[in-house]
């Protein structure tokens, strides 16, 4: 699969986790692709840490407003029903449990739902930003990531080796080949991508996979 097509595969599956009226937060990377896979009639509200609720897509060239960006600095549009808040209120939405679902990328995620995505000691340490609060307090946290890193190592592991963003915080993991649910007993393989065999998923995953009684579905 090309880079674009695997990212789109992940984003399209992730879009199914959003329904009418939901308050949603998208992290950087693959999460920013999810919204385009939702049908226009589904009304949902995208929260950005810098105090926007009801963010639309990125602006067409020439339509930029210097006072309206997302948390990564990109110029964005608003949807009807949008609102602005200061940083304190914006994070009250997060820590107060008003994010229905958040999508984050991962460096590592464990079968128990631990997430590491903010620091590689000695290499990459730009600061925590809002990730820790989103990971810990979103009502539902979906990790969207490629199944393996560039060297081919599993990103889904038995135990995270990197410092954690949050412990037991991940509700669902979506990759280009599988949809998995961390549970107390271990990682449950819910779905396998079309054209991929169970054995390949097993080989490319760094922790044991449990199978649902009816077997994994397809996506």
């Amino acid at each position, binding site marked *: 699969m090309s880079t674009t097509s695997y990212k789109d595969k992940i984003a399209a599956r992730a879009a199914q986790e959003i329904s009418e009226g939901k308050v949603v937060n998208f992290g950087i990377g693959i999460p920013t692709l999810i919204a385009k896979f939702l049908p226009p009639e589904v009304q949902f509200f995208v929260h950005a840490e810098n105090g*926007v609720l009801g963010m639309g897509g990125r602006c067409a060239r020439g339509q930029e407003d210097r006072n309206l960006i997302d948390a990564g*600095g990109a110029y964005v549009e608003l949807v009807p029903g949008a609102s*602005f808040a200061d*940083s304190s209120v914006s994070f009250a939405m997060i820590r107060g449990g008003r994010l229905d679902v958040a999508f984050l990328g991962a460096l590592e995620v464990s079968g128990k739902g631990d997430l590491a995505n903010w620091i590689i000691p000695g290499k990459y340490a730009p*600061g925590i*930003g809002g990730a820790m*609060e989103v990971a810990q307090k979103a009502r539902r946290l979906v990790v969207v990531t490629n199944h393996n890193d560039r060297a081919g190592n599993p990103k889904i592991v038995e135990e995270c080796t990197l410092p954690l963003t949050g412990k037991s915080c991940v509700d669902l993991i979506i990759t280009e080949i599988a949809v998995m649910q961390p549970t107390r007993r271990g990682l449950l393989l819910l779905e396998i991508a079309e054209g991929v065999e169970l054995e390949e998923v097993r080989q490319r995953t760094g922790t044991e996979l449990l199978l649902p009684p009816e077997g994994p579905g397809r996506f």
Partner: protein
Amino acid sequence: MNKVCSLEEALSRVNPGDTVMVGGFGVPGTPFTLLDGLLKGGVNELTVVKNEANEDHMGISKLVEAGLVRKMITTHLGLNKTVIGMMNRGEVEVEFYPQGILAEKIRAGGAGLFGLLTDIGMDTELLSSTKQTMWFEGRELIVESALKGDVALLHAAKADRFGNLVYAKSAMNFNPVMATAATTVIAEVEEVVEIGDLDPEHVHTPGAFVDHVVLLEELSEEYGILEHHII
């Protein structure tokens, strides 16, 4: 009643060694003209509280690069390689907080409280091992002290002569909490109107919090549309 004054008069309130709170999240809400004034004045040994360090060679970054900042209290430097490099070489001290916790530390400072209790980061050893914790109502929590500034530098769209402030869109961000938490509060504004001209329902920061208002003659170039943030 008139809090409008010159840039020089307002910035004369900033002294070496001060803790300076600076509004803004990326470009929107960052008081670039006040920051350029500080740079020109060369006031040093500053502790700066800001969400991030702006991008390379912009705003706060210029002060850090000029060696005027001793310490940054911030949340994320991901868009600024220059300041990350200076941090890694020990040229500027950096203290990171989760973004909303930084906002709450400031809010507590402004609200006359002494600290707050939070579970954010409690189960991640990297954060909890460096923090004071306490048992409270049956669980262990991180104790965060309130944060106050000697000076707050803000950017608002509009002010009246009493200092009532109105922010634009996502340029609000940290400005309202910082307005409450510093001894001296200075706002650069794009427009000044007469007292009575702002609808009381539309005021974001009541004038009681604001000491000085500086009217911008022109917007700094950073407030242009940044090419690298366009698709």
